[in-house]
Each structure stands twice: as C-alpha cells, then as structure tokens.
C-alpha cells in the first residue's frame, strides 16, 4: 500500500523518560524514603524520653538502646528463629496466592462454581485464625506444614476477592474485540483478562506480603520450639522484654522486606498504571 503523508501536525514523539527525568525520579524516591525515616527516628526519640521521664521499668518497656543491644547480642539466636518464620511465610504466601488465583480464574469462567463456593470462602474467612491454628497443628503435626497452611489461609482471602474483581474489570469493549477477532477463551484470558487483573492482584499481594508473616507468627505460638512467634511467646513469659522487642523488630523487618519486594515487582510489571 502506498502510505499517504500523515496529515496530523505531530510535534513531539511519544514521551520516553530521559536521563534527567530518571534522576528526578531518584530524588523523589529519596525524599519519599527520608520523610518516613525521620518520623521513625522522632518516634524512637520520643519513646526514649517517655521512659526516662516516667521511669518506666525495663521489664514493661525497655529503652531503645536496650533493644538495640539485644538485637546485636542475640543476633545468632534471632537469625536462627527468623529462618523458619521466613520459610513459613514465603510458603504460605505462595500457596495462598496460587490457590486464590486458581479459584478466581475458575469462578470467572464458571458462575455456578462462584455462587456455590464464594460464600464458603467468606465463611472460612470469618473463623478466627487463633482458633484454627491448634486444629491445624493437630491435623498436620509439628513441622512446617500447619504454619504454612495458616499463612496460606490468611493470604488466600484478600487475593481471591481482588482477583475475581480484577478478572472482571476487563474492558467490555476489549472483550467484544476479542469476540470480533474470533479469539478463543484462552486467548481472551491471556490478552485481556489476565493483564487487566494484575493491578488488583498486586494490591492484594501487598496486603498478603505482611499478613502471611503474621499468620506464620500466630501459628508458631502453638506446638513448636522454633520461630519468631515462639521466641515472642517465650520472652513474654520470661519477662525478657528487650529480646521480645528485638524479636518484634526482626519480624517487622521481614514483613517490610516482603512488602518491598512485592512493590518492586509491581513497579516492574504494572508499568501502565503509573
């Protein structure tokens, strides 16, 4: 075909981020990190001041310096207990999300299945995790299995809800286009539904990234002698409050790291939402 000259008055081609633009993004990122870090530092300082002013005993609330000392001195022990918690959280996160995605895909393609099972999923969600944990230990033993199962259970629900919504958020006109192009169901899924659902999936996974750690922690309260959850319970009973706080700091750091990884993946994979 002979192509006519474009009649449009095109001034500048598509906006492609240049190097100065990237440097600016770096500065923005730094400022975004700096502000919460400053707030955190201020809170720690406030904590220290309150303890000194009101002479709070160390077994109730330890001083920040004491927590720091516990972190350094007990680092081998903390790390030993952190590893099982990390394994359980990751395992639960992966399992919970995979099952939730599979269920959401099945629901979107089969309305009867959705009507039958969605309420059951909601009902399971209302059961208190603290009550389910001992039951899982009874059923699955003392190893990783019950902890992974609980972490999976806690991550399952937000992903299921968001994923169903995400798969159904596909532009009806894009789906109609798929029909006009005689696309198969698989193709419509691959080209339209799945990418449409990714922003929803990632917002669910951001929630799941931290709650999976919480699930693993709660599961470690019962029937185990390893993990940060176990360490937290043990140090509470022994009034080793500094170590208890150190264990909480490590737990929080793990959850934050998971959150960061998921956010980075989102940033890389869901570029069009920015």
């Amino acid at each position, binding site marked *: *075909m002979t*192509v*006519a000259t474009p009649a449009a008055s095109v001034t500048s*081609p598509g906006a492609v981020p240049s190097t100065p633009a990237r440097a600016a993004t770096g500065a923005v990122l730094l400022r975004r990190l700096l502000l919460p870090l400053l707030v955190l530092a201020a809170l720690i300082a406030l904590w220290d001041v309150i303890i000194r002013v009101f002479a709070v005993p160390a077994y109730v609330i330890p001083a920040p310096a004491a927590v720091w000392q516990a972190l350094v001195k007990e680092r081998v022990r903390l790390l030993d207990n952190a590893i099982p918690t990390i394994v359980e959280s990751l395992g639960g996160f992966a399992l919970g999300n995979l099952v939730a995605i599979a269920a959401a895909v099945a629901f979107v393609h089969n309305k009867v299945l959705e009507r039958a099972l969605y309420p059951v999923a909601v009902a399971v969600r209302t059961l208190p995790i603290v009550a389910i944990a001992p039951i899982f230990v009874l059923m699955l033993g003392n190893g990783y299995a019950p902890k992974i199962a609980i972490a999976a259970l806690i991550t399952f629900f937000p992903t299921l809800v968001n994923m169903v919504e995400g798969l159904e958020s596909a532009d009806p006109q894009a789906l*109609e286009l*798929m029909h*006009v192009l005689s696309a198969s169901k698989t193709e419509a899924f691959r080209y339209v539904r799945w990418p449409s659902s*990714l922003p929803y999936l990632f917002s669910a996974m951001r929630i799941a990234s931290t709650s999976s750690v919480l699930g693993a922690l709660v599961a470690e309260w019962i029937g185990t002698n390893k993990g940060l959850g176990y360490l937290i319970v043990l140090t509470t009973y022994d009034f080793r409050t500094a170590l208890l706080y150190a264990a909480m700091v490590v737990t929080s750091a793990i959850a934050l790291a998971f959150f960061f990884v998921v956010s980075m993946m989102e940033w890389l994979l*869901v570029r069009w939402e920015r």
Partner: protein
Amino acid sequence: MATVDIACRDVSMVFPSAGGPVQALAGVTLDIGRGELVALIGPSGCGKSTLLRLIADVLQPTGGTIEVRGGPPSRARLAREFGFVFQHPGLLLWRNALANVRLPLEVGAWGRRHVPPHQPEDLLALVGLKGFEQAYPRQLSGGMQQRVSIARALVTGPPILLMDEPFGALDEITRDHLNQELLRIWAATGTTIVFVTHSIPEAVYLSSRIFVFTHRPGRVMEEVRIDLPSPREPSVKDTPEFVRHTGALRRALAQAG
C-alpha cells in the same frame, strides 16, 4: 450498485429485559454495496449500534437474515472480513500503540497463517501517528487513541470496516480532523465502511448514502443519497447543497424522534 457486501433482510432484534422484552429493531431491510461509505443515523436507542453488532456477529438476530459477503456473519467474522471500531478505543493499556495495532495479527496466529497486507508501522503512519509507535495509550489523547484503534481495525486488511460512533466522544476539532482522515483512508484502501453516528453534518460529509432510523423499535425510515462531489474537502460544508442535505436530514430526524 455493483456487488452487495452486506444484505439485511427483514432483520428484527428483541432483547429480554427485567421489564419485559424490548424490541430494538423491527423489519430492517437494506443493502450495502462494495466500496460504499454508508452512515446509519437516528435518535438514541434506535438500534443502529445493535444492527452493527448483528452484522459483526457479536449478537444474533431474533428474526430475519443477514448476509455478509454472501455468507452468514459468523463466516465473515472467522474469515476476518470486517474490522470493528468501537465508540471508545478499547486499547489494551499494557501495550504500546504499535503492539495494539499488531494485536489482531497475534490473535489466532493470524499473522503467521496469512501474509499481512499492511505493516503495523505503515498503518500508524496512515492514521497520522508516525513517531508514536512506542507510546502507551495513557500517554495519548482520546483522538490519538481512536486513531490507533482504527489502525488496529485495518491491520488485517478487512474488506469491510464497521464503526460504532467512532468519533462520538471527541471534541469537534478532532472529529473534523478524523473525518478528513477517514475519507483519505477510504480512498486509499477502497474499504466498505458502515458507520453509526449521531451527527448530521458528519453523516452528510462522509457518506454516499445515509439510512435514517426511527425511534425504538428501529426501522429504516428513509434512505438518503448524498450526491456531493468526491473527493470531499471541508469547504463542501459551506455549499448550499450541503446545507440542503443537513436541513432535510434534520427534518427527517425530527419526525423519527
């Protein structure tokens, strides 16, 4: 009229709804010849978009028959004998302009089973988007997005182009501009074009024939032949003939509504 590309015989369409069945179309009979540019115009809810969807095999008529290039619409759909342009561009946000245009070649591996008649790059240039290949839909204006969707509809070289109020959501300046481009594309490709519109001047400016639809249930109330010279320039809109056509259509539509 030489060869008939689209033939509708006594087509009717009834939608089931909560408040009882709704008759969208009743006994529509019309022929559209190869290479024609035909407008369907009528009041809101007159079923003209429904007719386009029946031709495109997105919906099935509850009565009558439709033939597209001598066969049922489903055959034409499977053979990719028409492209469809929606009211909203419906671009995939995660694909850049070029990848959006390429989509019809990827679905069903069409591009591997056929020799693509156009290069996606050439089509973007044809709709005036040279240099915007890598731009994502969110970086493009509404008019530019609609041009991408027109390029997408043309990429498999369909002999028929179905357009459902393609410029309805655009401002008048962009609309005039795209009307001009559509005439240019029509002249360059010889495609049969059927488009639905609400705009009387747009219908008169673009079409060789206009079908005026009545309010629900939609029927063809009038068929108007536009004998303005081709190729048309925007200045034709100032001629007495143009004004006479728009006036006649306005009176017909007042009756229809």
